[in-house]
């Protein structure tokens, strides 16, 4: 691998995404991408007796599915890179306990999918592991309980609010094999433009997404038309619109490619009451590993840039009147045979 520019890597060994595992909850199963997920649960409790246990069950299931689909035993996976939204990332740690794989825990809030994927790609490309897995998860009820209000609390969500996805996405990477390949990644800096409203994450995260995308293009000397699709993780309606504004002001020709957002893709705005759209670590994970890679396998997409975005606040920082620092990590994925 090579360091490119200030904050990007070029993976010349081109680690392969051998298989992915995507599982979601019932609400996501009612959305337009349901057919692209490996398993849709019909109960939010995932058959567990607490929301927290449900979330880790999703993580475990996604990881096990990815290994199974690749025909690899879990103990051949050398390293598991994972994280989630819970305090002390307990969903990932408790799941990793079950999976019994050496574990690198990362916290990127909703940017964890690409943060973990970039880290796992770096491991494989640098020769540090023949197989590495990147997994992340989120659950609507655990997120509401931790960050906002108890789930049965009657609050009226504003139209900028987003709905946390219940699900988990896992990607198993290897040195060779057939499947989409990871060619580059850009690690984001923390960007904070002073937005304080946790019910308007899209606005908080948009500058971070734009910052990382610009850095990526600069570091790798690329431009938007090098990609068939640039997709952000969960800016949703409000953030997506702001990102477009920011691109316009920077003179960045985003219109040379298709620019989309996972948070706007996973739910049906007409039928599902999700205000601005989706959020949560699982949002970018399941949409990328399920839907986008499927499209790539069908030949509809050849080269995509997935930019997962995260809001790095805690309940205490918010109550203390702090603003919301955000981050975005980008991974370039190409269809190709290694």
């Amino acid at each position, binding site marked *: 691998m090579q360091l490119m520019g200030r904050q990007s890597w070029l993976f010349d060994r081109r680690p392969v995404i051998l298989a992915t595992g995507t599982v979601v909850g019932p609400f996501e199963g009612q959305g337009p991408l349901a057919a692209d997920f490996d398993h849709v649960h019909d109960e*939010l409790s995932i058959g567990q007796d607490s*929301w927290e246990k449900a979330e880790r069950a999703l993580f475990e299931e996604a990881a096990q599915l990815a290994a199974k689909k690749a025909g690899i035993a879990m103990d051949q996976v050398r390293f598991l890179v994972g994280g989630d939204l819970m305090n002390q990332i307990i969903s990932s740690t408790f799941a990793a306990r079950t999976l019994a794989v050496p574990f690198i825990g990362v916290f990127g809030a909703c940017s964890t999918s690409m943060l973990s994927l970039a880290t796992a790609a770096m491991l494989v490309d640098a020769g540090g592991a023949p197989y590495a897995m990147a997994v992340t998860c989120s659950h609507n*009820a655990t997120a509401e309980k931790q960050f906002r209000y*108890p*789930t*049965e609390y009657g*609050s*009226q969500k504003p139209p900028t609010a987003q709905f946390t996805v219940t699900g988990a996405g896992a990607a198993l990477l290897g040195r060779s094999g057939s499947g989409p390949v990871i060619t580059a990644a850009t690690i984001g800096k923390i960007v904070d433009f002073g937005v304080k409203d946790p019910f308007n994450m899209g606005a908080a995260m948009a500058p971070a997404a734009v910052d990382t995308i610009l850095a990526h293009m600069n570091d790798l000397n690329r431009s938007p038309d090098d990609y068939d699709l640039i997709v952000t993780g969960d800016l949703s309606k409000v953030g997506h619109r702001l990102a477009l504004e920011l691109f316009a002001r920077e003179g960045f020709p985003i219109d040379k490619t298709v620019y989309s957002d996972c948070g706007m893709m996973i739910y049906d705005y007409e039928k599902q009451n999700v205000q601005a759209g989706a959020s949560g670590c699982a949002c970018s994970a399941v949409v990328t590993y399920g839907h986008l890679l499927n499209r790539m396998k069908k030949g509809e997409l050849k080269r995509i840039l997935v930019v997962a975005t995260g809001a790095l606040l805690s309940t205490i920082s918010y109550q203390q009147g702090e603003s919301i620092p955000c981050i975005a990590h980008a991974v370039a994925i190409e269809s190709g045979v290694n």
Partner: protein
Amino acid sequence: MDLVRAFLVGGTICLVGQLLMDVFKMTAPYAMTALVVSGAVLDGLGWYDPLIEFAGAGATVPITSFGNALFHGALQELERYGWIGIITGMFEVTSAGISAAIIFSFLAALVFRPKG
């Protein structure tokens, strides 16, 4: 007639709460606190009791009555015992509501599971 007045007054107080949230951009906890405080102030001015006479449940059901009750309790004890009554009196009048909420919530936790 009682019902109409309860509807109008209660609805108006809720309307004020909604405006505090939408127009003044207060979050729910802040808006509700503001209403509790105004209940106390209105009672201090002697206006809340007449409102209760007029609108019945329209004035006792909204959370403003909580502030009113707190002040009422303080006032009762103030009149009886002097300044120390302010402290001892406050929870006299609201204890039914709070106890009911605590007990019923506890029982609910025994019986119900969160649905998400």
